[in-house]
């Protein structure tokens, strides 16, 4: 989605104005990418929490135990665990599937590892962009310094 072309550009050949433009574009991209990074991390944490919850709650010895079910973040109603053999999993676009707890855990683990892969890929991209940004900043600083005496 980024518009950078595969051809290489000699940074020192660009004017200070162009460099500043490139710099602000890079900064925008970085901002966007780190936001995506945060979101992926949050999603991963959410799935990990699901795994923990399923593991802790849906085991045979918990059958018949009472629990407090949160209706909102501060309102709970008492409930009883009737069925420890099935959970409902949101698989996206409004579809839900009934799964055995161990299948649900496998499902979430799969999600977590996919996200992990994405996070690693994204981190590499972010690092690359940061390197580019540092380079552009460096060249820009040199440009400004070398042109300063003329202005003064």
């Amino acid at each position, binding site marked *: 989605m980024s518009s950078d072309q595969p051809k290489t550009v000699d940074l020192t050949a660009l004017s200070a104005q162009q460099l500043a433009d490139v710099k602000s574009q890079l900064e925008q991209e970085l901002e966007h990418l780190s936001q995506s990074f945060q979101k992926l991390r949050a999603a991963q944490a959410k799935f990990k929490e699901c795994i923990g919850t399923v593991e802790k709650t849906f085991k045979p010895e918990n059958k018949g135990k009472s629990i407090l079910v949160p209706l909102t973040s501060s309102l709970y109603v008492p409930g009883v665990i009737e069925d420890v053999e099935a959970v409902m999993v949101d698989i*996206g676009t409004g579809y*839900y599937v009934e799964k055995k707890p161990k299948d649900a855990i496998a499902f979430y683990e799969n999600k977590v590892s996919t996200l992990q892969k994405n996070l690693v890929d994204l981190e590499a991209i972010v690092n690359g962009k940061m390197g580019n940004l540092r380079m552009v900043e460096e060249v820009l600083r040199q440009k400004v310094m070398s042109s300063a005496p003329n202005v003064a």
Partner: protein
Amino acid sequence: MADVATQSAYEKLGEEYRKTQSDLSAYIEARQKLESQLQENKIVQKEFSILDDDSKVYKLIGPVLLPQDKDEAVVNVDKRLEYIEAEIRRIETQINDTRAKSEKKRAELISFQAQLQERPRS
């Protein structure tokens, strides 16, 4: 100083250029939205493909979960994917057209500017 007619022609051109630019960013935004829908539906499709045939599938409609036939759900998602892919192709051509149009306007704008500067100042 340029006369009023040239001035207004120049402004009109600039206005047209800005219009193509804002069209372009609207199309790109739509393209991104479609892409995320495509990805989500692909994930669901993949999940359906590894599901047992006797799995119970539900669809969330408003605040209710309605039981759904699995085959029906699979067909539904396949159809949705087809539609989204077609939409993406449509938007892509629009993006390319608009981009070309924008480029052309920009070139016109630049040559106009050059003309204005060449005129002897009176």
